[in-house]
């Protein structure tokens, strides 16, 4: 920085200014709405309209309790938690053996199978929402969480398999051969040799999928539907918005409730979560 002199072309001086200005401007555009949203959760409509950016006069939780009662958010959080945890378990159950097999396979079949999973990045699963809905009906699982628990792992398999396979490829074959010598079966090798080494990769896959499962909206909306006993938090939240006379304070309080679990995980596992999100683009 000290080396920069006034002899620099004007364009360059403008350049160094712009990227910094842009960065902090965007930071402000991220922060101000988030601040506004948190303080609004403790205000009434009048206060939000009159003085959008002042701190609330008192931090009472009446908006939060109203939101929870009005949209059954407690039940919705439980539904989201059940769906997310079950789908995460199923994803690992499917992706771990698959990645293990793909990482060890040397033949052409393995390459083809890997290619099929990689193609999954191109599949606009959203465009096929209606056939998915037919599939749910055909399985007799329409309007149940169960179907979404089955479906979400399928949407997550391509990325999970690609990440885990590349992780397992780094494990030296000698380790596995040593175990095979002792008469271990494939599954034992997977459990005793591969799994312990793959813990960081598994953590990445879990965090990435936790975000996308917890935040899933259209699938649960269509496939689980509006039944309060089954619907997830993301489906319940927008019901706080009504065409005439939305209580914005309650809406923001509800939004706060949906974000808390994610924010908690992020603040505890910040480094791991960032690494997980970065592997979201490992392959195009």
């Amino acid at each position: 920085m000290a080396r920069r002199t006034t002899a620099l072309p004007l364009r360059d001086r403008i350049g160094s200014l712009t990227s910094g200005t842009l960065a902090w401007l965007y930071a402000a555009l991220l922060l101000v709405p988030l601040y506004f949203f948190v303080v609004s959760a403790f205000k009434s409509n009048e206060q939000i309209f009159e003085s959008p950016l002042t701190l609330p006069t008192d931090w009472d939780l009446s908006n939060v309790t109203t939101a929870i009662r009005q949209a059954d958010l407690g039940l919705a959080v439980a539904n989201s938690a059940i769906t997310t945890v079950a789908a995460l378990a199923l994803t690992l159950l499917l992706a771990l053996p698959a990645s293990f097999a793909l990482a060890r396979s040397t033949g052409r079949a393995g390459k083809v199978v890997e290619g099929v999973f990689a193609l999954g990045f191109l599949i606009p699963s959203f465009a096929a929402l209606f056939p998915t809905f037919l599939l749910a009906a055909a399985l007799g699982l329409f309007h149940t969480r169960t179907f979404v628990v089955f479906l979400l792992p399928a949407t997550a398999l391509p990325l999970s398999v690609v990440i885990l396979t590349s992780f397992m490829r780094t494990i030296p074959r000698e380790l596995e051969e040593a175990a095979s010598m002792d008469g271990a079966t494939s599954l034992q090798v997977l459990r005793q040799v591969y799994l312990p080494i793959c813990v960081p990769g598994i953590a990445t896959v879990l965090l990435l999928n936790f975000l996308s499962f917890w935040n899933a909206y259209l699938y649960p909306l269509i496939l689980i539907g509006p039944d309060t006993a089954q619907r997830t938090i993301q489906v319940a939240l927008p019901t706080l918005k009504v065409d005439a006379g939305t209580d914005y304070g309650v809406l923001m309080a509800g939004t706060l409730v949906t974000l808390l679990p994610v924010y908690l995980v992020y603040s505890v596992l910040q480094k791991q979560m960032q690494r997980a999100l970065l592997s979201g683009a490992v392959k195009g």
Partner: protein
Amino acid sequence: MTAVADAAVRTSPHFPTDPPARRRRGTVRERFPGLALPALVWYAVFMIGPVVAMLVIAFLSWPGMLVTPSWAGLANFQTVFADETFWAAVRNSAVQIVVGLPVMIVLAFLLAFYVVQKPRGHGVLRYLLFIPALISAPATAMLFYTMLNPDGLVNGVLRPLGVEGTAWLADPSTALGAIIAVELWSGIGYSAVLIAARLDGVDGEIVQAARIDGAGDWRIAWRMYWPIAREFIGVVTMLQFLSLLFNSAQNVLLLTQGGPGTETTTLAYLIYQKAFVEADLGYSQAVGVILFVIGLIGMGTIRRVLRATH
């Protein structure tokens, strides 16, 4: 099977003492990754199956769930291409991509470039950039719904500045822009952290050398970092392209339901609307097929434009 037997014969000298049955099983396992089968089947049933079904339904006349579908040939496509709403959706999706995507990627690149210089506060900046990626579509939409309503934050900030705001989501001239703004808000941060991760790998010494030679930030960004990261930026661009093209349906559904009129009806939202609101299933899936093709063409184009140059 012959290939498998061949392989068994070829590998046999290495393990002369193994019992033959076990040897063959080992070879089969190597050749075909059997443990991948459950995942493959699962994936085929829940992902590939519906896409194949979409390709079939696009050629059926199916005007409602309770009606028995019949073969329609290309009739759905003829209806789609003759429909003004479809062309409005094409126009809206095109604006969204042509305006939204370059702005998102260029801004994300400049942000990433700034962050990797490690200026003061870059830790805070990196922390903040991740935040939009954590927030779900409904939560983001509800936040913007609150900010963009006529009495919301945006107008509250503009009024003292002497600018009279509008009902951003209901005004035909601003609704699509508002949807794009929401997508930029959440897309720039994530793209920037992805690109920054790639730029972090650039050798600091070359940059230092260029600085000593008097190259300024602007030139270092566009002449050095951009070419190096070009291919990876292509990957990020594809990711965001698909997200804009397909996932925009969520924002539209949550914020405007395609209105006012058809001002914010994007192709992805049209698929949703025709299937689940109007129950015109053949039409909906025909648009699905068209969107699929557009997606492939777009990916090809991005790949071509941002291919590594060497």
